[in-house]
Every structure is written in structure tokens, then in C-alpha cells.
């Protein structure tokens, strides 16, 4: 059960700025070899949490216990960890390869090894022919690739990636997603903070959803899908278009929404106690049905639903 070994554990960690808590008594653990995602709306405390993990800022209360090489520690050893900060930046006037060698050396690599790995990564990210150019000469997306290399050039045991997909075009997002998966396959544990739900859904093993500095939901992707509610969801494909009023008035239907991409498809959430079989038997009489498939809620919906619910609960709470 090596994959279940706890690598990083936060225990009741709190951090405030100007008297306002950015992270409030947060606890979680990250297991060796997994991709652990921190999700949450803007201002939820994700970046503050990541910055405390890498030691850029210190918690006001609580503690962080790290066990990368079998030794319990209170901070992450730089040679074993990699960090891609949300606030990204590199020395613009310095050539790409020199920049990467410097960061590799800061992470404890010998100069020749840092150079070798830098060249490897540049080739993988299609930047080898630009190794002698100044960083400022690269496009923003390519600068982000270089910054990403600085975080993983030393093959860290733990990589903390704060918003790694932000600012990337879809192809680059796919490329980075593949790299995240490859890193995990190679044994790197990854903590990532992101708000691209579809990418997180495809990359993460477990997710912790934060709102206003606190955990509101956590678990594996499957567990999260099940947490929205137990009510089944179906997608109907129709022969042409049809009036949806009859469906909305059906006693088993809680919600009907159109499909954004396909005008002949609709999504239906059923009420408590309803079964797909019973609904199907009536649906064929209400609309020109071509096909029906069950579906699970997307992470995006889970996210929106849970955060709204948490906001409503806090608004109603006297404290």
C-alpha cells in the first residue's frame, strides 16, 4: 500500500492577512504518488495554502508535516520538491538554457547534469532551437514552458503546481496534462491548484474543494461526483427538436437543460426516488427519442453547487 503513504500532512493550518483569515484551520494529507488537486473560487485560499507548503510564508497556527525521504520534517527540502508559482516570472535578459541551469543548480544538480536535463526538457517542449535566446524573446506561452521546466528539472519527489494550465492554449494544456501524468507515472507526487475543472477531472486522483479558506468537500473524483446528490441524470438524444414542456411537467423530472453543443440533445436530472427505467417508459411517449444515456455530474457542476451551498450556509450562519 505504498501509494497510500502520507507524504504531506496539514494539521489545522491557519493563516490570516490583516486580521482576515485566508486559510482557516485547514487539514488534509497528500499521499505518495498521487495527483492531489486544490480547487476553489478566487480568494478561496488555494495559493496561500501552496505558499505555506513550499515555505514562502509560514502558518500562524497549525503545522505542516512532510515525510519525503522517510524523515519527518516541518518544511520541504528544495532538492526534493519543485514549485511552479502562480506569480510567474523569470530573468528576462538571460538566455533560456543559462536560466534553466541556474535553477537546476539551485535545486542541487551538478552543472553538467543540470545542462543535460535542461536540454532534454527543452527538446520535449519543442524549445531546443531557442535555448540561446533571451527569455524575453519568447512568447508568453513559451516562457511558461520554461518556467515549468525550472520546477521539475531536478525530478522532484513532490511538485507543487499553482495554476499550471492558466494562460495556455488548448494544445499546450493537453501537453502539460500529459506531462503531469508522466510525472506521476515516474513517481512524482503532485499537488496542483487549478480552476480548469475538466483538466483537473482528467488529471487528479483526489480533490479538495476550498471556499473562504476552509475545506468544503474532499475525496476522489468518483466520490465527489457521488456527493452532489444521489439523483440520476440522463441525456436524451432526439429525432429533431421537440417541446420540452411535457418533460418539465413529468413528475419524475427535477430539471431540464439544453445541451450547449447539440440542439437535438437535452440533459435531465430526475427527482428523489425516480428510476431511469420508469422515466424511460414515459419519455418515449412524450418526445421523439433516439437514444438515452445515463451521465454523472461534471466536476464543474459539483464545484458550483457545493460552493453556492457553502456560501448560503455561511450567509445564514450568525457567525
Amino acid at each position, binding site marked *: 500500500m505504498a501509494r497510500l503513504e502520507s507524504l504531506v500532512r496539514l494539521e489545522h493550518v491557519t493563516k490570516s492577512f490583516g486580521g482576515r483569515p485566508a486559510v482557516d484551520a485547514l487539514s488534509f494529507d497528500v499521499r505518495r504518488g498521487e495527483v492531489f488537486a486544490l480547487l476553489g473560487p478566487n480568494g478561496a485560499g488555494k495559493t496561500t495554502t501552496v*505558499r505555506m507548503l*513550499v*515555505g*514562502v*510564508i*509560514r502558518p500562524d497556527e497549525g503545522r505542516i508535516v512532510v515525510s519525503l525521504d522517510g524523515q519527518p520534517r516541518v518544511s520541504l527540502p*528544495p532538492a526534493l520538491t519543485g*514549485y511552479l*508559482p502562480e*506569480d*510567474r*516570472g*523569470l*530573468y*528576462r*535578459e*538571460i538566455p533560456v538554457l543559462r536560466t534553466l541551469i*541556474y*535553477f537546476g*543548480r*539551485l*535545486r542541487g544538480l551538478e552543472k553538467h547534469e543540470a545542462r543535460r536535463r535542461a536540454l532534454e526538457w527543452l527538446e520535449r517542449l519543442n524549445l531546443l532551437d531557442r535555448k540561446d535566446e533571451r527569455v524575453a524573446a519568447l512568447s508568453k506561452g513559451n516562457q511558461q514552458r520554461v*518556467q515549468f521546466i*525550472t520546477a521539475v528539472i531536478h525530478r522532484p519527489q513532490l511538485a507543487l503546481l499553482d495554476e499550471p494550465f492558466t494562460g495556455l492554449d488548448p494544445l499546450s494544456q493537453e501537453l502539460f496534462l500529459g506531462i503531469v501524468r508522466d510525472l506521476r507515472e515516474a513517481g512524482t507526487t503532485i499537488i496542483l491548484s487549478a480552476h480548469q475543472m475538466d483538466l483537473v477531472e482528467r488529471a487528479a486522483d483526489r480533490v479538495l474543494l476550498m471556499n473562504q479558506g476552509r475545506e468544503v468537500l474532499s475525496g476522489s473524483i468518483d466520490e465527489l461526483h457521488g456527493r452532489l446528490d444521489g439523483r440520476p441524470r440522463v441525456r436524451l438524444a432526439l429525432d429533431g427538436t421537440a417541446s420540452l414542456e411535457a418533460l418539465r411537467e413529468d413528475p419524475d423530472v427535477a430539471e431540464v437543460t439544453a445541451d450547449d453543443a447539440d440542439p437535438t440533445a437535452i440533459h435531465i436530472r430526475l427527482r428523489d426516488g425516480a428510476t431511469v427505467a420508469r422515466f424511460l417508459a414515459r419519455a418515449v411517449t412524450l418526445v421523439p427519442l433516439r437514444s438515452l444515456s445515463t451521465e454523472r455530474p461534471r466536476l464543474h457542476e459539483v464545484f458550483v453547487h457545493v460552493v453556492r451551498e457553502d456560501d448560503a450556509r455561511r450567509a445564514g450562519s450568525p457567525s
Partner: protein
Amino acid sequence: MRHWYFVRLVTGWEFRRYFKWKDQFLGFLIFVGISVIAFATSRIAGRDGRSMTVATYGVQLSAPPGGRIALAPAPADSAARAAALRDGDVSGILSRRGDGTFELLVEKDPRHLPELRALLVELVRRERLAESGIAEAELARILAPPPLEVRFTDPDRTRAGRAERVAAGVFLGLVMLALFTSMAYLLTGITGEKQLRVTESITAIIPPQAWIDGKILGIGAYALASVANMVVGGLVLALAAKLAWGFSIPDVVVRPGVILVLVLFSVLALLLWNAFFAAFASTIDDPNTSARASVMFVPMLPVALTLSVLRDPDDTGSRVLSLFPLTSPSAMPARVILSDPGVGEIALSALLLVAMIWLTRRAAGRIFEIGMLMYGKEPTLREMWRWASAKSGSR
């Protein structure tokens, strides 16, 4: 030690970030070129200054050869005198009134007036000597000061002359140049890192104290290299001046012991002020808009105080200045050039300075630790004092 591993890496990085052979060579050429042009200009201006011709009317005056005043007899006719002045043949017409006073008629503000006045003083003195009947040789004997020879117990030592004072002044200038070079690069480098958001990537890897130590050393080394480049340029010029005009460098500044003290205190001065500059730079976002940029002129104050050492290097004030850590980096080398402060005093001064550097470096590290991650707000002096006094890792 891991701390020094990081310091070594950052020092090398910061030095190589700014040091470029091409730029240094270009700087060398520009320095030598400007010096040659300035020297040539002053020579041309000096030559032009000799050509003031004064016509004398009713005055028995003679000018020594090689002076900047040339004398010529003025025409007897007043109209001809006026025409000579108007046409620019002469710069002025010197005449003597009936009461014995002199009048210089000119069209524009006369140059070299003190030189002309000296000639007139000499003329009047000779006239009065003739009236009194005292021989000129006798008067010179009466007014001559008694001879006094200053002899040092160390036969190799000589009195500080004008050349030594110039050398001390040049040294102070070079220290200031190194300080301001460091200041400029620290200020633009650190605020640039904040603006480019490089800070967080680095502070996640290395301790802030190691980062600031590396910056202090790396940029200090760059400033010293730049100044050394200028010193080499100056030596080339001095050698050329020696070959052309017999100019000689004061012996005192080429003694190994003196060079050692000068280099030691220059390095210590850079370390002290670089720690101050680095901490300060970390507390501002943009030097172009910060109202605090004027703080960067603070190092000029101790150097200005040190100028008093040039007048009397061994009085109490000079001795205090050469021991006090903020003024000692400039005052002690000045005293070493002009006087002989003794090994004990030099060692004590260096020790006090090293202790001050250590304290400043630690305080700077704590300010830097928090300041580098602050954006959009400049901390108050009280906040900075609180950070400097706090334990490391309080961010």
C-alpha cells in the same frame, strides 16, 4: 554548508548577470577617451588664456616671459588707443592716474586680473623700495621665514603633499563610484525581480539570508570590477602623463601595505552599504515612483564628513571618524594615505567595521525576507525596524 553553497551560486549568478567583457572594454575606452579629450581641452583653453594683451600708457610695467599677460606700449594718441581697443588689437589699456592709482579700460570683463594685479603690486613695491632707500636684497633677507626642516623618525616617510591629498581624494571618489554602481544595480536588480515576479520562485528554494548575501557579494564584486577597470584606465593615463610630462604617482599609494588597507576597506565599505541598499531596495516596488529613492544618497553623508580628514588626518575628529563604522571605510584609507595611523588603529577600525557589517547583514536579511514578498505597499520605518529586530522566518 548549504547556506554557503547557495551564496556561492547566487554570487556567481549576480556577477555574471551584469559583468560583460564587451561592456567593460567599451567602458575602458570611453573613460580613457573622455579623459584625453578633457585634458586636451584644458590644454587648448590654457593656451588660449595666455593671449591677453594689455597696452600700457604712462605705466613702466614689465611682464615676465611665459606669463598669461603680454604688455605693449599704447599709442600716445587717445583716438588711436580707443581704436586699438575697439579693433581687438589689445584687451585693455592700463594707465596711471595723477593720484597714483591705476585704471584698466576694457570692453569686456577682463581675464587674468589677479595676474595683472600681481604685476602692479610688484611695480609699486619696487617704487616704494626705491623711495625708502632699502636694497631689495636686504628686504628679502628681513622678510624671509626661518628655515624649518621636518624630519621623520622613519627615513622612508615623507610629508603629505598636494599629490597625496589628490590621491586620497581620488580614492574617496573611487569608493563613491563603487558604492553608487552597487546601489544602482541592487536597486534595479531587486525591484526588477519583484516586478518580474521572480522572487517567489527563488525564495521557495533558498533562504532569504543566503539570497541577500549572494547579492551583496555578487553585485559588490561587479562594482569593484568596474572600478578596477577605471583604475587600470587611470594608470594607463598616468603612465602616458609620466612619459610625456614627467608626472609621477605619489609613492605612498603604491606601497603594498597601503594598497592592502585601501582594498580591504573598499571591500568592507561595499559589503556594509550593499547590505543596506539590498534591504532598502526590497521594500520598494519601483524606484522611479518611490518617494524614498532619495535615501540612496545617505552614503554620501559619511564621505562628506570624511573630507575633514583631508585637512588634518591626525586630529581627534579624524581619529574618531576613522574608527566609527559608518565613516571608517573612507576615513581610515584617507588617513593611511595622508598619515600613519598605526596597525593597532587600523585593525580596531576593521574589526568594528566587520562587526557592523555582520549586524547590518542580519538585519537586512530579515527586512529582505518580508520586503521581497510585499507588493503595492511600502512598509513604514517602524515596520522595517520591527522586522529587523524579529527572528528570522516570521513572514
